């Protein structure tokens, strides 16, 4: 039953899911690094991105690159607004206040989408060239799978370069290290946080498109689990480490897919439970994750 092609197939599926988790984890970990905020609203941006693409590409019939760009734009603008309206006032206060506010913002966005788009799920058909079936050595996949993995890796490389090489990226790392020290050396912390939100949210919106294209269906509540699992990925990879978040995303995607693929059929419905059992195990046994530095958990 577990032939080579079956295993390869599962690995590929895990890789695709993992790259989406990694993209989400990337955006979340940057915000977390600076504000110590688990941004629950991150998941809502996935939904927003998917619905923006759906509306512009499938309903208005704009060309694919434009629809994708619009999705990015909506994600980025939403991210900027959330930071400005929701979080800026609460910075420096108790961490839990930010957490509760992000929960409120998530519920707000989810239900705005529900109100605008009605609660029913929609069939999500990506452009034909992405839907083509490919077959390499018995492993079947669609072009969209390759698209997701390639684009994710490109985004991650671009982000790594941004953080390592550009002035703003260095300022971002410095702020994550210590907000106080960053202020002292003249870094505009508000600007850095805004950039972190905009970039992370735009990437989340693109992930929303990928999610819809991969699973063929979008609904108003699709983003929540994805967002929470992205946080699990951050913990697995190691809090505070950007490469760790990406590795954690891939590990989580692979574990989730392989657990469903290789455990007896009855266990498929426990996939969410498996993810959170993994989270609790990591927090207990190795709270610093794969690449994280020491931090009081």
């Amino acid at each position, binding site marked *: 039953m577990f032939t080579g092609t079956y295993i390869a197939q599962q690995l590929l599926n895990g890789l695709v899911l993992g790259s989406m988790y990694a993209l989400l984890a990337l955006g979340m970990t940057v915000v977390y690094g600076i504000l110590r905020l*688990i941004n629950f609203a991150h998941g809502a941006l996935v939904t927003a991105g998917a619905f923006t693409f759906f509306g512009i590409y499938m309903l208005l019939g704009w060309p694919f690159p434009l629809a994708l760009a619009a999705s990015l734009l909506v994600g980025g603008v939403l991210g900027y607004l959330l930071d400005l309206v929701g979080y800026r006032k609460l910075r420096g206060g108790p961490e839990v*206040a930010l957490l*509760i506010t992000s929960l*409120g913002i998530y*519920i707000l966005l989810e239900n705005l989408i529900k109100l605008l788009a009605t609660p029913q799920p929609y069939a999500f058909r990506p452009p034909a060239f992405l839907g083509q079936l490919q077959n390499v050595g018995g492993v079947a996949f669609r072009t969209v799978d390759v698209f997701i993995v390639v684009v994710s890796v490109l985004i991650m490389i671009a982000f790594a370069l941004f953080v390592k090489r550009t002035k703003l990226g260095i300022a971002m790392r410095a702020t994550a290290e210590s907000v106080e020290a960053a202020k002292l050396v003249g870094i505009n912390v508000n600007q850095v946080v805004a950039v972190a939100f905009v970039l992370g949210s735009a990437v989340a919106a693109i992930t929303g498109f990928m999610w819809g294209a991969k699973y063929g269906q979008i609904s108003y509540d699709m983003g929540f689990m994805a967002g*929470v699992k992205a946080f699990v990925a951050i913990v697995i990879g190691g809090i505070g480490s950007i490469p760790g978040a990406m590795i954690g995303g891939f590990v989580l995607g692979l574990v989730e897919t392989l657990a469903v693929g290789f455990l007896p059929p009855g266990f498929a419905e426990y996939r969410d*439970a498996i993810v959170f*059992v993994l989270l*609790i195990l990591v927090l207990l046994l190795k709270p610093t994750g794969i690449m994280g530095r020491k931090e009081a958990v």
Partner: protein
Amino acid sequence: MQRWASLPGDVKFLISVGVLFLALFVANCTLNRYVLHVIILIGIYSIATTSLNLTNGYTGLFSLGHAGFMAVGAYVTTLLTFPVRLRIAYNLPLLPPFLGGPNYHWPFLPALIAGGLVAAVAALLVGAPVLRLRGHYLSVASLGFMVIITTLAKGLKDLTRGAAGIQAIPRYTNIWWVYAWLVVTIYVIWRLLNSSYGRAMLAIRESEIAAQSQGIHPMRYKLLSFVIGAFFAGIAGGLYAHFARSIRPYEFSFSMTFLIVIMLIIGGAGTLLGPVVGTAIVVALKYVLKPVEEGLGVYGLVEIVYALMLIGVMLWRPEGIVGGVNPLRFLFPKKGGRRNAGVPHGEAHGP
């Protein structure tokens, strides 16, 4: 007023309870069934919110897993009180025979308490690892616990009938059951807060390190508050199941957990009556806005209003509606009864 303030706390509590039940009696006789339905729902959610307040408000552990404990309580109570004639039709082979065999079922009260106890045991098992975590780690881990519980409820089809849920649960819950339990919940938490245990919990909330330096063992008190909170969450779940008459796993999921958190934050976490006030506002608002939502076909309106209220409270009044200026402060002074007057928080010692 002067005389009322000088009465001992217990007497004031008893008088308040008397007034409450008199009001409920009048309401029960005069109001129509729809309004009574809302009043009962407020009572059930108040139990859940008040118990969540113990962990989230007083001990400073921001748990998001409360719906999970409610699910445990709801399922255990339901399985115990399940009517004999339905047991064969529902065919639940995993249900242990001694917990209500094919020929008998438990009465409501012991079943409810059993539900609360199982939820408390679950809290003990989950709390031991999860409560070691701080802040948001705890929030996500407890949310994860809730997901694990709902997935189990979906998966263990031979015990819970899976996603189909359990229907035709006898309707034992009424206004007296609910408000009697609410009074018990508030009483227990009130007395707890005025004991050395409660002082230790408050100290942990303010600063865990400072509490430790005073000889308080944080894990012990965190676990205690988590377990007591879970017990009453289980009771609320059991009452809910026997009120709604049907339970499905997804009911005890994110929306329920968030609803309870919203009620608590709006009312005022860390105040005795805040949770009840918040619950009353949120539930009443739902029944006011639901017709608007359905009439206009704008589904999601109620949740949007909740979310805006939550964000508004966090931005402009983080202590909640009741926090700060407590209109009912003369009833239940924050510092506890006269007995404890003058003992500053910081000097609380563990027993």
